[in-house]
């Protein structure tokens, strides 16, 4: 190729890329992997003529570390409730005041003024869920609504239990199991937590995230897990059930915030408002398989989620739910030590 044709080709390529971005605007979303419904995004793009780009992350810590470095080019991120106060405190998020947005009226009252973002000054609910126990009832038929499945494994499940290695979730569960409060620094309780964990570990087969496939294939017969994952497992094998531990189980919610360094602030605000619409919220749920905090969205929910016990917490189990909090750094330090002790 001679110089002239190369230059022409480059020019054409440049033209092609710029014409692609000929939408009225752009929106760069930074979200967990496999979490953003392509259908809802398409709808948003069509409605406002905005080009949306999605980048994945795999943990709250990764997202926080990256955004803190700055210069990411992202407009939006979706941290968990435990991390939202950190994002706010570190000045990473923009005060967009979603509480005053048009669709905010749809947010369920119990999520309209959460302690992690009082008055909803920054964040909009994206998804919410629980951490509980999944059991293959073909193998174990006894009562399973307890963390005892994990920490005092019944004989049928010994050597077949998996634990999702999410440190804060596991320690939370163990504290609840021994009757303590989350983020406790009570040494007596923590000693019990450590002893319980260390004694329970020989009955576990693995500590893995890949539960959907392994429960399906039968490598695991029980696991600690998130409710959305449990739903997928039951749809693949009806014998697999999700249980809400009666000692207390963690409630979490991921929340959409606009970054302070966002270049497309107006588009990001449009998106915040857009996902509080019941139909769109249901569209997001249909994809990520978790509940949302938008009243009226149940009408639009897919049939297999409408009455799913994994998504809609049964009345009897509701009192045991507890919103998980971010523990202070010195407490976190103790938990890391117990965790290292457990996995050494």
């Amino acid at each position, binding site marked *: 190729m001679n110089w002239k044709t190369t230059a022409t080709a480059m020019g054409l390529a440049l033209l092609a890329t710029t014409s692609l971005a000929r939408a009225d605007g752009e929106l760069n979303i930074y979200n967990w992997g496999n979490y953003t419904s392509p259908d809802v995004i398409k709808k948003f793009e069509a409605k406002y003529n905005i080009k949306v780009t999605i980048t994945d992350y795999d943990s709250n*810590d990764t997202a926080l570390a990256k955004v803190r470095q700055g210069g990411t080019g992202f407009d939006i991120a979706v941290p968990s409730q435990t991390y939202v106060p950190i994002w706010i405190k570190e000045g990473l998020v923009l005060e967009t005041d979603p509480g005053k947005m048009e669709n905010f009226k749809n947010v369920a009252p119990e999520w309209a003024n959460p302690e992690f973002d009082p008055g909803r000054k920054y964040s909009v609910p994206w998804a919410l869920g629980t951490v509980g126990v999944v059991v293959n009832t073909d193998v174990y038929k006894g009562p399973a609504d307890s963390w005892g499945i994990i920490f005092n494994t019944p004989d049928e499940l010994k050597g077949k239990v998996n634990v999702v290695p999410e440190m804060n979730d596991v320690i939370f569960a163990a504290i609840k199991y021994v009757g303590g409060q989350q983020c406790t620094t009570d*040494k007596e309780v923590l000693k019990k937590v450590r002893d319980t964990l260390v004694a329970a570990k020989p009955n576990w087969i*693995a500590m893995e995230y890949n539960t959907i496939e392994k429960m399906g294939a039968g490598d695991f017969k029980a696991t600690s897990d998130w409710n959305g994952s449990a739903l997928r497992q039951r749809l693949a094998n009806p014998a697999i059930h999700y249980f809400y531990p009666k000692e207390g189980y963690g409630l979490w919610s991921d929340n959409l915030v606009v970054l302070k360094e966002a270049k497309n602030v107006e588009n990001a605000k449009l998106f915040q408002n857009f996902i509080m619409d019941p139909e769109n919220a249901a569209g997001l749920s249909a994809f990520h398989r978790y509940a949302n905090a938008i009243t009226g969205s149940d009408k639009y929910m897919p049939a297999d989620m409408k009455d799913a016990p994994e998504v809609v917490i049964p009345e009897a189990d509701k009192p045991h739910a507890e919103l998980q909090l971010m523990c202070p750094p010195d407490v976190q330090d103790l938990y890391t030590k117990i*965790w*290292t002790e457990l996995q050494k």
Partner: protein
Amino acid sequence: MASAEEVAKAAERRDVRDRWLLSAPALLIILFAATGPLLIVLVYSFLTPGSYGDVRWQFSPEAWVSVFMERDIFDDTLSIAAAHVTIFWRSIKLAIVTTIATLALGFPTAYFMATRSEKTRDLWLFLITIPFWTNLLIRTFAVLQIIRNEGIVNAILLKLGIVSAPIQILYTDTAILIGMAYVYLPLMVLPIYASMEKLDFRLVEAGYDLYATRFKVLRRIIFPLVKPGVIAGSILVFIPALGAYVTPSVLGGGKNMMLSNLIELQFGQGRNWPLGSALSIAVMVIVMVALLAYVRNAGRSEVRHG
């Protein structure tokens, strides 16, 4: 006269300048891509952890202390960091066993390849390098499919009636070793093959002519001559095996931490970047000491044999 001297000086100056300019790309890469990041890790290991990840710019030897010592969270006594020692030892042990296993498998493989005809040799070499085209994670998952309870091995054993229930291989130490040996085998075969290929097989024949047994030929002729390949292969396997992360967690189930999991924990949920940095440097030092000891030892025994 003076002008000639000046010309010579100018030429020399130009020469020096050219030399710097020509080596500049290499120097820049070494400085910014190799040494620079390491220096950052070193500096971070002497700082104070930030509240939620990252570091605070305040000197603290705390990270280095906690690499070796731990304060019991219950009775506050200071003792050797048993958890860290256990985890370090687990990784070192795995690296050593992997090196031995790949050597045991790789040496005969390389010998077999080197003794084929010139044409077929290329084919064997090609077959050995094929796995490199695939991502490590995919190769590990392939092993998982073979050894899991519903996997190929158990299906065959069940069908033949050798076992009545599937054998639990997945999530055991055996599984980790199978995976590691498979993944790192080419790294051992290739350097041994490279030196084996240059081996003059007439020496082997001469050995037999002088009534040496097969074992003696292997020990006194073949092995000393391919030793550089064995050393290179062992180093190539040992170092990455020490930091292995994917294979042990996928096949071992992730119940027990490896060195790299411990380091990852500090940068992730543990939020103690200085400790993570200090642990990383400690691993590097261990590798360096082990290598020096190994190379020196290997060199000395060569002298003795020679």
